[in-house]
């Protein structure tokens, strides 16, 4: 404890003098858990994400004349449109809600490196988007007549794409909270930056659906993994400066 503070307080110590082991991880999980608990009570965000993504799948399914030879051409784009725009609905609430409800300062007051707030929010966003993906993936497979054998590699691509999208989106969600047109600004800022993620994810999805050899798509995989790593590192370094007033 800093010196020269009231010594009588120490007799009623309720926090450990030194942070416990894995304290950083505990706080990341606490922040994610708090967001999940709040969402379970209201279901506001997940409802909107589900409805939107299902609408996209259904509309694209019926809007195009999806003969078998057309399906694989359109399917990757349809899947990632559904994921990206549903994800945008969730990312918009990530920090904007905290700011609007006045709870962001409570997070910033916590005795933890600011990056823990980022990773806690990031983890929550990944989970929310993943829940939507768990629902739309079976529908995607059914509506676009895809074999079940694509599930495992496709899930891998979806995981990597979601990490990249949520990683950038969480940072940008924090960046726009101090602006007026933040609901409009977030997608305007986010989509140009995540083009490499979406492009790679669409190309990899197309490669899986077309059963291409790994050598034909490995460059896109490399791009996606590199983007994920770079932007998670950049977000870790930048977040503290982004949330400061």
């Amino acid at each position, binding site marked *: *404890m*800093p*010196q*020269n*503070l*009231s010594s*009588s*307080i120490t007799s*009623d*110590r*309720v*926090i*450990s003098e030194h*942070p*416990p082991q894995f*304290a950083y991880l*505990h*706080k990341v999980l*606490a*922040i994610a*858990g*708090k967001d999940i*608990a*709040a969402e379970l*009570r*209201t279901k506001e965000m997940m409802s909107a994400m589900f409805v939107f993504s299902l609408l996209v799948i259904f509309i694209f399914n019926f809007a195009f004349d999806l003969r078998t030879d057309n399906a694989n051409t359109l399917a990757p784009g349809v899947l990632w449109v559904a994921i990206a725009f549903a994800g945008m609905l969730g990312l918009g609430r990530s920090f904007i809600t905290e700011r609007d*409800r*006045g*709870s962001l*300062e*409570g*997070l*910033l*007051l*916590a*005795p*933890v*490196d600011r990056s823990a707030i980022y990773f806690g929010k990031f983890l929550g966003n990944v989970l929310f988007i993943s829940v939507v993906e768990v629902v739309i993936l079976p529908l995607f497979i059914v509506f676009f007549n895809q074999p079940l054998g694509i599930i495992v590699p496709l899930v891998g691509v979806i995981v990597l794409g979601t990490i990249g999208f949520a990683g950038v989106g969480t940072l940008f969600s924090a960046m726009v909270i101090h602006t007026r047109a933040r609901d409009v600004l977030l997608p305007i800022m986010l989509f140009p930056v995540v083009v490499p993620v979406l492009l790679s994810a669409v190309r990899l999805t197309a490669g899986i659906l077309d059963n291409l050899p790994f050598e034909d798509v490995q460059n896109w995989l490399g791009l996606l993994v590199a983007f994920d790593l770079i932007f998670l590192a950049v977000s870790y370094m930048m977040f503290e400066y982004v949330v*400061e*007033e």
Partner: protein
Amino acid sequence: MIKVRNLVKAFGTRVVLRNISFDIEPGEFITLLGVNGAGKTTLMSIVATLSKPTAGKIFIGDMDTQQHAAYIRRYIGLVSHKTLLYDDLSGEQNLRFYARMYDVEHPVERIETVLRQVGLWGRQKDPVRTYSRGMQQRLAIARAILHNPPILLLDEPDTGLDQGAASMLGELLAAVGTAQRTVLMTTHNLERGLSLGNRVLMLSDGKIAVDMPREDVSIEALAHYYQQ
């Protein structure tokens, strides 16, 4: 001890705090007064490590708040006009979350203790959005003292409360806030501020205009600054 040295805060070209310096001794209860826009909340925000000064330093004990911000926050509790609570969660869920964030030992027992202190035991399972404004502020106090901080920052905690609720809050703050803590409180209620504090600081145009013990200050003299 809290030492504020040559503190300056500017937002662009607008200077809000102009070279402020003062000390707070352990156990002091400082009432920080000033008109809207004087810089009170900005000063609180910097002391709480929520924002960084443009120039100058703050030391808590012998630790620079800018270099040891995350560590120092363990010893600070903040009650502001915003409750910093999650409306969709229950009172207990809110406190459990903050107990994890502050590494509170024996959180279950500690949460019950603070909820009983603020008179909310029995409503802990209800969502915060069902609480009245006064109850929400009491829960905010519980959140702020959950980790038993030696420093308590109170930024206009009675905002939005009716007279009865504000009086109750004042009594609660006197009971939990002043006991063995160093307190810095801002308020527009001169009477309540002077009744709780033992020292008065007044900010005017970003500078300290008044710094004296409570017994040397009169409401009439302070009211003069608000009328200028």
